[in-house]
């Protein structure tokens, strides 16, 4: 049987694409954190001076997304078919809420991503603050004002916090699960990988939420 269609192969495809996306999540917040130093416009301008890096990265991410969604859907359908009848009484001993709802948090993150791209990459949701058509005093796209003006609306900030919670839950199961799929576990390392995955997921959630919350609280303006 071919690697990508085998039971373990499919899981490895999920793990590798998931890990690529998780690395991007880390890179993305590290870059976005320049907003706290009022250096977001400078960061973005510098980043776009590396077109090979930006477009190469986008291509890798697009492929990772497509394969992650494809294999996630295939696995979910196969798993669903393998357990057609539910128990009258169900009790989970070790399976977590995050793990059991991985597909749904994944769907939430996917839907959010479309909105996020329309809002900040294609800048079509609120043309009045679109950075590409509203440069700052130095002539750079004014990403900072676009972000601050957007998050001042409590509804938008709320959507972000809820979506980030879904992302956090997705990572809570995904990080530790990906290492197990790679076979990088034994009795001693499994609890360490699980705890590290949990801490990283919670930290990323808090770190990401810090931006909309700082703007709502008026700390960033």
């Amino acid at each position, binding site marked *: *049987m071919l*690697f990508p269609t*085998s*039971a*373990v*192969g*499919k*899981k*490895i495809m999920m793990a590798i694409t998931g890990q690529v996306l998780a690395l991007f999540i880390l890179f993305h917040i590290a870059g976005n954190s320049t907003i706290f130093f009022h250096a977001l416009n400078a960061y973005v301008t510098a980043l776009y001076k590396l077109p090979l890096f930006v477009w190469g990265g986008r291509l890798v991410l697009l492929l990772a997304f497509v394969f992650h969604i494809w294999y996630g859907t295939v*696995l979910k359908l*196969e*798993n669903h*078919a*393998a*357990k*057609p*009848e*539910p*128990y*009258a*009484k*169900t*009790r*989970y*001993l*070790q*399976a*977590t809420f995050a*793990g*059991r709802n*991985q597909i749904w948090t994944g769907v939430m993150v996917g839907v959010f991503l479309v909105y996020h791209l329309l809002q900040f990459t294609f800048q079509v949701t609120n043309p009045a603050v679109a950075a590409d058509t509203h440069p700052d005093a130095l002539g750079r796209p004014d990403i900072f004002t676009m972000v601050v003006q957007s998050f001042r609306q409590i509804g938008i900030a709320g959507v972000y916090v809820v979506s980030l919670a879904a992302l956090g839950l997705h990572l809570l*199961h995904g990080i*530790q*699960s990906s290492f*197990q*799929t*790679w*076979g*990088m*576990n*034994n*009795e001693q390392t*499994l609890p360490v990988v699980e705890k590290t995955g949990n801490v990283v997921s919670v930290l990323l959630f808090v770190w990401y939420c810090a931006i909309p919350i700082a703007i709502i609280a008026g700390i960033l303006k």
Partner: protein
Amino acid sequence: MNLTLYVWRQKSSKDPGRLVQYEAKDISSDMSFLEMLDVVNEGLIVKGEEPIAFDSDCREGICGMCGQVVNGVPHGPRKKTTLCQLHMRHFKDNDTLYIEPFRAKAFPVIKDLIVDRGAFDKIIQSGGYISVHTGGVPDGNTLLIPKHDADIAMDAAECIGCGACVAACPNGSAMLFTAAKVSHLAMLPQGKIEAARRVCAMTEEMLAQGFGNCSNHYECEAVCPKGIKVKFIAKLNREFIKAQMTGS
């Protein structure tokens, strides 16, 4: 003690099946779970009703024949205990118990609480063995096995193939069972020779039999009456990657 039971009754694989309420009266706390069902069945026979069909064999916790889902947990609430070794003292008087068969597409119900676990045999047949050349018995100590490896192989070999891992898995996956067999043989020099072919064949057969994929929920480990660890699933994954890398 007295108990209220809701037992899954299903005449055949074609019957839709349903939960039926029974009262288990004057149950001794020293009885095993299966003995409690024996008592209920005796009452049913006296009343002229069909007794509840369930699997059992050794009743010593080593054959892997018994297995039902009690209140949502395969083999009941006690850790590392088969249903036949689960005693009624672990329940309280007037408890309500839901007793259901192991559920998975690959384990069709034959009757009441009995399921067909033949899919496990198919997985074993696909590679869960070593090919040996017949001949003279080898001299003792000609094939030395480090204690550490022997211990791990024995831990994996503890699997009795009861199917609780499949019953507990939200995906109906047989990864813990397959991983135990793959790991057991891959740890030993006799089994290493065919390790690559084995892991590919057994995981493929697992899918062919209609089992799901592993989502790393670890419910299997929590209910395994022999305490098989999910580290063996990681080992199976490693063996699979190794097999793919070497093109075996």
